[in-house]
């Protein structure tokens, strides 16, 4: 049990975990680890192997590609899943804008985690669909 006891309540309010009952949320909370980053600290480093899947509990973060800030992430948002799913190093830095509290799951455990929690898998898939839609709109 590496996370603080308020994590289950916080997760219950996030879309990604909104379908889970309390015992399953507790299991999720125990599977993930808690991390804390100070402002300007890099959470994920572009091009480096061995990263993870992160869920923001508190704070905001910047998606930075080749040194350029592209978007902001907020509580309930998650990142790192593309790198994990493709087995490739991240294509962007994620940098804490202000103190950032996250849950993290190593890439190696993401597949088992999603298969064990199919409702989370579906919600994640919805999130990825939104990203594809937004990118398509942006390109057109």
């Amino acid at each position, binding site marked *: *049990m590496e996370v*603080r*006891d308020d994590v289950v309540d916080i997760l219950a309010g996030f879309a990604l975990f909104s379908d889970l009952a309390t015992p399953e949320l507790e299991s999720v909370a125990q599977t993930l680890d*808690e991390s*804390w980053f100070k402002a300007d600290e890099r959470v994920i480093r572009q091009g480096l192997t061995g990263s993870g899947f992160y869920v923001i509990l508190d704070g905001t973060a910047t998606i930075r590609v080749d040194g350029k800030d592209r978007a902001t992430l907020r509580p309930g948002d998650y990142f790192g899943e593309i790198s994990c799913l493709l087995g490739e190093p991240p294509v962007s830095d994620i940098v804490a804008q202000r*103190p950032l509290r996250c849950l993290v799951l*190593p890439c190696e455990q993401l597949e088992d985690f999603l298969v064990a929690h199919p409702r989370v898998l579906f919600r994640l898939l919805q999130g990825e669909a939104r990203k594809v839609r937004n990118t398509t709109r942006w390109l057109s």
Partner: protein
Amino acid sequence: MVVGSGPGALQLTYSLRRLGIEHAVISADDAPGGMFRRWPIFQRMLSWTKPYAEAERGSTAYERFDWNSLLADEAEHRAIMPSVMDGTSYFPSRPEMERGLVAFAERTALQVRYGCRWESTRLDGSEIVIVTSDGEYRTPIAVFAVGVAEPWRPPMLAVVGVEQYGDLRHAETYADRRIFIVGKQNSGFEIATGLLPWARQIVLASPSPTRLSVDVRSLVGVRARYVQPYEDWALAGGVVVLDASIESVEPRDGGFIVTTKSPQDGSALTFEVDDVIAATGFTSPLRDLPQLGVTTFGQSRLPAQTPFWESAAVPGIFFAGTIMQGSHGLRKHGIPSNSGAVQGYRYNARVLARHIAEEKLGMRLERRRLAPDDVVPFLLAEASRGPELWHQRAYLARVVAVDADGPYDDGIQPLAHFLDDSGPDAVAMTLEANGKDDPYPAVYVRARGLVREKLLAPHPLLHFEGEAYRRELADTVHDLLDRALTR
């Protein structure tokens, strides 16, 4: 100013003194050793010291095989632990560990003001005021090495009669009793192992599945020493290892009724037991530091730290010993540093002492110049035998930097600092592991502010000095060294 007298504080005060940095050390205890004066509760360490190993005892390379000795520069003070062990196990007993730490403190003549309790803290301008049972200390830099050894339990287990790590009765008093242990990490399995010969039944429960160190090839799993209850469960011997959340714990007839719920299907189970033991983690006794602004995180309430173990929120407050695990580093592939254990934080302490000397006190420590041709063999020797790299994988790195006069050894540095620092062109060598393969050398080249990662192949015998490694590393650092030579 250093607070504590466990191995973390002892290593730091030794390292500060070697650099000629004046400081005071206080401890509420009356002798060195920290938590090892009492724990592990079943009186044997989890960390080994091999009396005989591939490397000569007392050499730097031997430190890879000796996880428990503190580090000294003088030959006569090195590798103390094997000299105080009786040879019956390569895991020292708790008294042997304590003896080793006392011997280190005595032989190196460390000065600690024992019996002096840190009571409160306040900030006064740029000074930190440490109020103790013997009066006030004022210091620009305070290092707290007070351990992460306060047993913690969730409110659910705040029930009269529920025991926890550290306040257990003698093992024989659990004879023929049904015992419910909450928590399936090392402390839970340590308790289960100790009570296995006594208990009528043992149940170990927590929501997430048990991971074993031999499966995940890292110390995040339950150690082999404590796997016996797990085997007992796997062979249906009577122990129950359960993935379930605890719904309620109610006292009844001198025992307890424990109800659990499965995270998979929500099904409930009820246990009637004689004892409930919380093995749900530990916190650090940080006293009033959070009120001063020190940010903490996670169930252990570890202080958030910079790569050099300074509070991320309150400058001047540093941490040593096992609290250093709050400076998480990269956690590549989910594998944490070994900063929570002696074999990890003893190296952090040396790095921290140098950091304080240079960055806080303005000292300039010497760097050894290297001939360009020596860089590749030097880095490969470090990958093969450097104990800092072996014990702190993907966390500490050997750095060779380059300036107008050519390459020089820039010492051991936190890898996160190297990657995120806009320092001189340099190469960092570390060892990494991914939880399934053998460890492999990882090389990071920083040139013109950009960092490139190059992973070398693992080797079944962990020897990284062969021709293939030389060629690959030479190619990787060629541009870096070439630019230095043509400046």
